[in-house]
């Protein structure tokens, strides 16, 4: 939840930064102002960042080249940790699972969010209530969601979901226990939780669509699906970009859902990048290899973000 809040903040910060004119005027009217007062205001945040983000990050990079033994002295071992990660078949599986999960969840949550937004757009009081209800999964702690879904997915024939599909004659499914199904069960929970967040962004986008375009197209005889395809979707393109970039970056770091629902099991069928790192670091005490895995994750996130920004900027230039 905090991550999402953090990501949502970014556009605001950029907005503030892109309005320099007001600041320059004020500075001219106050020549006695000192240059370092700006830094003074930034100092508390910078110190917190330094202490809780940058120093740990550099230590992480350092650890990724070491055999970590705090009490016997760390030992420099060059690229061995990275080689161990790259050659570990369990890590390959974890990366494939992360990609499947990320891709499925992102696409699912975008489609789900779009459908919800189209259904729930409007100003009526009841819609406001339904929208709030739909948004609840986003503000609920993932650990709680995990427990609720564990009950829904209870694998006995009298489990919640199994008794529902039983009414239409389907056999009970071992949702989180069957290695072939578990990953998709987690994906469904992720979509359920992520779609309402996207809905809010799409709702904001929909509010900006010029009403007259709808009317004009209706007069020209466009059917509902034509209006969606030629008016609504093009108007939502900026919102779509934001949603996809956020989803893609977030999906690499998926952890809590998986950890609470299956702990990476059964038989490693739902092991993702982060659960693998956690297991290596905290269960097997191989901090160096875990650090190398984390740094690779960082690089992948940075690369993905850069790629997304590049695409966005190219499109904006057009």
């Amino acid at each position, binding site marked *: 939840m905090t991550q999402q809040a953090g990501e949502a903040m970014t556009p605001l910060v950029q907005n503030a930064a892109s309005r320099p004119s007001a600041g320059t005027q004020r500075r001219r009217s*106050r020549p006695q102002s000192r240059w370092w*007062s700006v830094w*003074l205001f930034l100092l508390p945040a910078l110190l917190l960042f330094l202490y809780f983000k940058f120093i740990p990050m550099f230590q992480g990079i350092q650890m990724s080249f070491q055999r970590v033994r705090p*009490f*016997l002295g760390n030992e420099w071992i060059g690229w061995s940790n990275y080689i161990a990660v790259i050659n570990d078949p369990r890590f390959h599986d974890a990366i494939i699972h992360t990609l499947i999960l990320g891709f499925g969840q992102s696409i699912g949550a975008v489609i789900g969010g779009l459908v919800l937004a189209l259904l729930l757009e409007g100003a009526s009081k009841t819609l406001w209530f339904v929208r709030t209800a739909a948004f609840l999964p986003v503000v609920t702690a993932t650990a709680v969601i995990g427990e609720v879904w564990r009950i829904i997915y209870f694998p006995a024939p009298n489990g919640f979901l199994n008794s529902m599909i039983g009414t239409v004659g389907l056999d009970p499914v071992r949702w*989180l226990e069957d290695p072939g199904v578990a990953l998709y069960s987690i994906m469904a929970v992720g979509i359920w939780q992520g779609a309402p967040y996207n809905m809010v962004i799409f709702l904001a986008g929909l509010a900006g669509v010029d009403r007259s375009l709808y009317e004009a197209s209706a007069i020209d005889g466009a059917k509902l699906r034509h209006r969606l395809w030629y008016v609504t979707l093009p108007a939502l393109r900026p919102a779509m970009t934001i949603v996809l970039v956020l989803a893609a970056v977030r999906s690499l770091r998926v952890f809590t859902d998986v950890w609470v629902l299956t*702990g990476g*099991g*059964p038989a490693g069928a739902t092991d993702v990048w982060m659960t693998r790192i956690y297991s290596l670091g905290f269960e097997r005490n191989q901090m160096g290899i875990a650090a190398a895995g984390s740094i690779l994750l960082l690089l992948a996130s940075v690369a993905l973000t850069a790629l997304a920004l590049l695409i966005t900027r190219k499109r904006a230039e057009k």
Partner: protein
Amino acid sequence: MSKNPAQSRRSIWGGAALAAMLCSSTSIAQEALEVWSRSGPQAAETYKAVFEAFTEKTGIPVEYLATVEFETQLQARAAARDLPDVLIYDQASMAAYATAGMVLPIVPEDISGHDQLSEASWDSVRMADGAYYGVPFSQHAQITFIRSDWRKKLGFEVPQTHDELIALATAFATQDPDGSGVDADTYGMAVPGTTDRGFFTWWLSSYMMQRGGSFVEGADGKYAVTVNSPESVAAVEWIQNLFCGSPSLVQPGALTNASATPFFAENHAGIYQTGPYAFANFDRAPGKDKYEVVIAPAGPGGKTTLTERTSIYFGATSSMPEEQKALAEFLISPEAQTLGMTAPGQPVVRLPVNTTLDAAEIYGDERWTVVAEQLEDSELMPSDIDFTTARLDIAETFQAMFSQCTGDIQGSLDGLAGRIADELSMQDALQ
């Protein structure tokens, strides 16, 4: 809009104070002995009572932390090179901490009262190189819990053999022992199949031994891998049938449940093999009169179960060696051992390591006689070598076999045996 100088001064001081706060380390002189245990809230109450008695007796204050996220929090403190002074934790982790240099070696003869502990107790805290790294604190064996009300209702005797155990579990799963009118809402056995900390391996080891199989065999720091021997393969086939047979005899979700305890407590499963620490929970639900505790039913390999031990370790960064020793000496004394069994909460000393005490007499509860009897026929997992990686690998491999059901058991076990052998030879512990 001009800035008030007083305000700006205040912000400078504010910033400086914040900077000082962030940069200051814990250089204040230590006053209390910091003690950690891996415990839930109930056991923590008992530990608190024990430490209060210690402070009263010696005047040494104790700062106590009970956590179930023990490993994670300890890793963080290890990275900061500032460990708790005393750790009270599973015997299974001693070797990992000792080889990492996190806990200090101990000379048993220096601990007063060491002669009141059995040879077997001291053997359990000895590493492969002959050095001792812990002081024994508590011991017990896993025992079998059975819903006696269900058993009597369905007309079964207490199971003495594995065949009778299977018959009872099958009846629990199929004959509606709770009288709810629904057959499929009760299950035979509650199984903690989670791979978290390799927990599944502990549960499995008892049944492996009872079927005549084993993971590794040996002693004194040298082990041979036996997990793929014909006896072990046969044992695994039998255990897999509990999960994959028809009807399945374990609770649904056994392999991903974080805990199996609720299934026994909430009237879903009728048989549960676990430690006596569960008494406190199960006396509340399903209720003290509704379950019984028995010696493990015998398989072809006997009725051996897993020994579990808790020991006291000295953190390597401590500046209070005298106080560490004083606490250990107190904790193995008859007074503290008795308090650990009887103080309100949950017994943290399950069976005393101090041989001058009689547990059954102190508890006044014959269930503890069963635990003591089972302890005589129980085995510790290797703890003089770092078995952590092997334990996790065993848990994961068995989970994979039992979740797929169709797996090639011999092939999986051969693969596992190879990996355990690699791990052991890395530690120079392969026979």
